[in-house]
């Protein structure tokens, strides 16, 4: 690959200064003339029929409307659908009269001030007719009535192969439902414009997904609904499914007045979407020398009260089990269950954290049984680059997991630590090291349509108008996509003007920020479009100045002849083209994802455990990640470090908990403990850069995979320190002390 000028450089994110100074306007900061304030009323009961008497509340001065089930369009939707081709069950209304979880939407109050709305909320008379509810997944397991969907994935014959294995090792583990913890709770603002278009401002992950649901529920043409992605204070998958957008849009359209609908932490925690919980049974057969011959996985997923992503999460967990190790005989049987808990949704890693958190601890258990080093055992079984997916998914591409393990071992000083670390043990403190591997995808190729459209033009002022439906989630997407365009065109990054997705401006994109597809698919499309446009620039220059392409050069937004006689800025050429050919210097491209390679990572950690209090300190953490090519190394390292923060939280702290009757026990940050800055260990990031041919300038996905491997690595380190086999998350101090005792 030629030397790169803009890609591979750590440029400052375009929004850094405004965010740092507190000047960025989020939805909660937006104001409109005659704006009304909305507040959702969430069910206090997990399973109930309800009736609502709003007479008294409506008498309060300043209350504009109170919507309940009776007032809404009777159109069921599935917020997980991102385009109409998806046909899994739609079972949710904008507002319900039969709440199925504590936090379900039962009313929307609209008033002239927040104070009035709160007052109305207290005056609403809600009668609950309670029904039995059960929240704990274990009580549902194998109860066919509760199954939303079952799926099997298989290669070879695992039953026969297990019979011939030298050892069979079995384990079970649990990962809980979890909250995303974005600093900005869910928010939305909707209004109508002078042409009776519906405008919806939202910090979402896919404007086209929001547009689709709003249009369908309100029976409006898609192009009468304008959804505009706003600045966002994090999502991590939590804002992927439209929950607030359709109801807020409905109310604004009904009242023809702007409505701001905000949530607080509790509402965001209990009433929106959660990471799916998983109970996993896993059984593996190995030869004496440590080769895996067969594996059987039995997965039980907590889907929550509505169907939402029951199908998607099951597929994501199941298929990934086939893309890390070379296992010729494997059966995965999975079920997603309805429970009376907050519905499941996307959460950074989409099934990868749950699967690997158990399967990778199981791998250490096997290595220990065989008395093999965990790295050595993995290296014997990991997939090599360009391996085929045994169940028919896309080829794994240039997947460098073995290189991640090799380089990670060396940088972490794995052998040295293994031999010397235990010398530090005291009666009170135990030390351990652990590692784990993981895989994640790059888009939907092989399971869903995955494409985007790009408009790119050189404007007469020399700036580049780039239109592609991308959403900044805090990953630095807008900057990295701009870098790709700059590299493709050979023009400074500052000249690229790229706005966030807006259904009236951005060309249609098939899936938004889903499935780790943005850099790989949208970035790939932008590279191709930019390169096509650059060719147009070169050809036009050659045409008007009588040169051949080999006689000319481009640099930093200029094109000139190598003999030094002719030189144009791109802007000058655009004006020339418009004047003489009645065309603008632009390109409209359709781009379909070229593949679905795997992104891989290996994490290595050292932990110190206080045997008296059960506290675990993560002393160091090294993550070797196969990124193909880091478009913006600082952003990439930031993503991997941030992913580690979530992964450590998942290992040690984070869990949403319901009691047996379906009442949520954890609904605030005083009870939901994310890892804070003081506790964050130094994260060493080792980028394994070996380009993926199908990715933009060789790049692959980063951000979701980043939240996967530190979790099982920590568990492996804990089990290494204490000689235990814990795989029930999160590993709280209580569980540590209990494991020591047992």
């Amino acid at each position, binding site marked *: 690959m030629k030397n790169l000028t803009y890609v591979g450089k750590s440029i400052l994110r375009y929004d850094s200064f405004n965010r740092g100074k507190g000047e960025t306007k989020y939805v909660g900061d937006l104001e409109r003339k005659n704006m009304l304030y909305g507040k959702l009323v969430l069910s206090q009961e997990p399973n109930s029929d309800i009736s609502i008497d709003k007479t008294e509340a409506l008498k309060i001065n300043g209350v504009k409307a109170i919507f309940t089930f009776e007032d809404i369009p009777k159109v069921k939707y599935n917020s997980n659908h991102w385009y109409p081709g998806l046909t899994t069950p739609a079972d949710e209304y904008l507002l319900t009269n039969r709440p199925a979880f504590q936090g379900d939407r039962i009313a929307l109050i609209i008033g002239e001030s927040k*104070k009035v709305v*709160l*007052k109305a*909320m*207290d005056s609403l008379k809600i009668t609950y007719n309670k029904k039995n509810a059960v929240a704990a997944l274990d009580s549902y397991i194998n109860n066919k009535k509760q199954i939303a969907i079952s799926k099997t994935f298989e290669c070879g014959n695992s039953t026969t192969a297990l019979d011939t294995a030298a050892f069979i090792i079995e384990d079970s583990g649990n990962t809980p439902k979890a909250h995303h913890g974005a600093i900005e709770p869910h928010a939305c603002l909707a209004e109508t414009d002078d042409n009776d278009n519906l405008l919806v401002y939202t910090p979402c992950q896919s404007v086209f997904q929001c547009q689709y649901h709003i249009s369908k529920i309100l029976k409006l043409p898609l192009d009468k609904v304008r959804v505009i992605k706003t600045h966002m204070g994090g999502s991590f998958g939590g804002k992927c499914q439209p929950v607030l957008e359709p109801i807020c849009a409905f109310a604004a359209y009904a009242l023809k007045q702007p409505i701001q609908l905000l949530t*607080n932490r509790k509402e965001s925690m209990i009433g929106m979407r959660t990471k799916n919980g998983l109970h996993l049974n896993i059984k593996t057969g190995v030869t004496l020398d440590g080769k895996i011959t067969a594996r059987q996985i039995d997965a039980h997923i907590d889907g929550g009260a509505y169907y939402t992503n029951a199908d998607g999460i099951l597929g994501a967990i199941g298929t990934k089990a086939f893309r890390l190790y070379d296992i010729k005989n494997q059966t995965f049987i999975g079920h997603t269950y309805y429970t009376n808990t907050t519905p499941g949704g996307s959460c950074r890693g989409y099934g990868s954290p749950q699967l690997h958190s158990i399967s990778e601890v199981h791998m250490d258990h096997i290595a220990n049984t065989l008395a093999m080093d965990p790295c050595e055992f993995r290296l014997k079984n990991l997939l090599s680059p360009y391996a085929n997916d045994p169940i028919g998914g896309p080829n794994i591409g240039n997947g460098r997991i073995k290189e991640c393990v090799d380089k990670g071992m060396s940088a972490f000083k794995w052998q040295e630590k293994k031999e010397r670390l235990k010398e530090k043990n005291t009666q*009170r403190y135990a030390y351990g090291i652990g590692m784990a591997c993981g895989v994640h995808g790059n888009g939907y190729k092989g399971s869903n349509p995955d494409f985007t459209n790009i408009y790119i033009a050189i404007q007469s002022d020399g700036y580049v108008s780039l239109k592609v439906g991308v959403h900044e989630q805090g990953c630095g997407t807008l900057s990295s996509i701009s870098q790709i365009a700059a590299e493709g065109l050979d023009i400074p990054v500052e000249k690229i003007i790229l706005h966030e997705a807006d259904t009236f401006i951005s060309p249609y994109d098939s899936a938004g920020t889903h499935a780790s597809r943005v850099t790989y698919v949208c970035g790939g499309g932008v590279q191709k479009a930019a390169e096509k446009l650059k060719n147009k620039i070169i050809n036009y220059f050659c045409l008007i100045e009588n040169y051949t392409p080999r006689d000319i050069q481009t640099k930093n937004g200029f094109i000139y002849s190598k003999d030094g006689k002719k030189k144009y800025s791109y802007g000058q050429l655009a004006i020339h083209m418009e004047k003489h050919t009645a065309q603008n210097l632009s390109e409209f491209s359709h781009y379909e994802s070229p593949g679905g390679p795997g992104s891989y990572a290996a994490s290595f950690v050292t932990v110190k455990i*206080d045997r*008296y*209090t*059960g*506290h675990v*300190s993560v002393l160091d953490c090294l993550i070797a990640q196969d990124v193909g090519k880091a478009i913006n190394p600082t952003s990439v390292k930031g993503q991997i470090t941030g992913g580690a923060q979530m992964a450590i939280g998942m290992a040690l*702290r984070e869990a949403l908990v319901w009691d047996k009757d379906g009442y949520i026990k954890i609904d605030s940050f*005083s009870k939901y*403990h994310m*890892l*804070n800055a*003081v*506790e964050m260990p130094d994260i060493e990031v080792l980028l394994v850069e070996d380009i993926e041919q199908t990715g933009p300038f060789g790049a692959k996905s980063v951000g979701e995979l980043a939240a996967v491997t530190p979790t099982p690595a920590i568990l492996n380190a804990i089990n290494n320190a204490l000689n235990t086999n814990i795989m029930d998350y999160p590993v*709280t*101090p*209580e569980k540590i*002390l*209990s494991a020591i005792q047992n």
Partner: protein
Amino acid sequence: MMNQFKDPKNTKDLICFLKGITANTFILAGGTDLSLKIRQDRLTNYNLIDLSQLEDNKGIFKDKEHLVIGSNSTISQIGEDPLVKKYCFSLHQACQTLGSTQIRNAGTLGGNICNASQSSDTLPCLFAYGATGTILNSHGDMGKIKIERLVEGSGKNRLAQDEVLMKVMIPLSNDYSSFIKIGDKQSVTIAKLNSCLRLTIHPSGIIENAVCFMGAIGSKATRTPFIENYLIGKDISDIPYEGLKQSIQCQIDTLIPNRSSRVYKRKASFGLIIDALSSIKSMWRKSR
């Protein structure tokens, strides 16, 4: 009065406002807990008397017999004050680790006492030192009450509607003390177990007296006589761990016999007391 905000600058003003106090009037003493309560209870009609402008209950000084801390002192001020560090080391430690920097900068000692949380970090220390509070009422009368008595626990205190805590007085002593806590997080955390251990140590190293309070184990910080009795008479440099462990476990079993957290707390409290003892031991050695 409805939705009124009063910020008395002196005691005279405060007395005046206390005279007109109603059931929906809150004393704002930092607001780190009150602001949450207002939001959580969705209160819209209430009045506030803000103590932050009141000079008469600020400052930390020493008189003949006491370390005196104005109830309006912030947790940060107490955590950084040299007199507190010298005369009530455990309170210094508690105030250095309480909540986050922002909470410590806004929260006050008076607020922390009167909020009477089960897991308050300052209360085990104030109880262990036998601290007394000075109370002002709407008639301008000043009274005294032991902080341990003032705090009822589980969020309740024994102040009448028209009373405000003005000062906290801690008797001076040469005792050693240490405050340790365990939370769900290792820092910026609410204690799920905390403890103040205060020891009188003879120059020979023999523990002459021990006072130990544990927090987050009852409705308010609770005295632990089993642990105290075990420590009295032992050499600070040579405390038998097994016996100590047993006394701690007996103590926890007695305090919370039926609570599910007992299993964890009876083990973790051993780590807590060991840390407190080791902190005191190193201070004692340094002072030798």
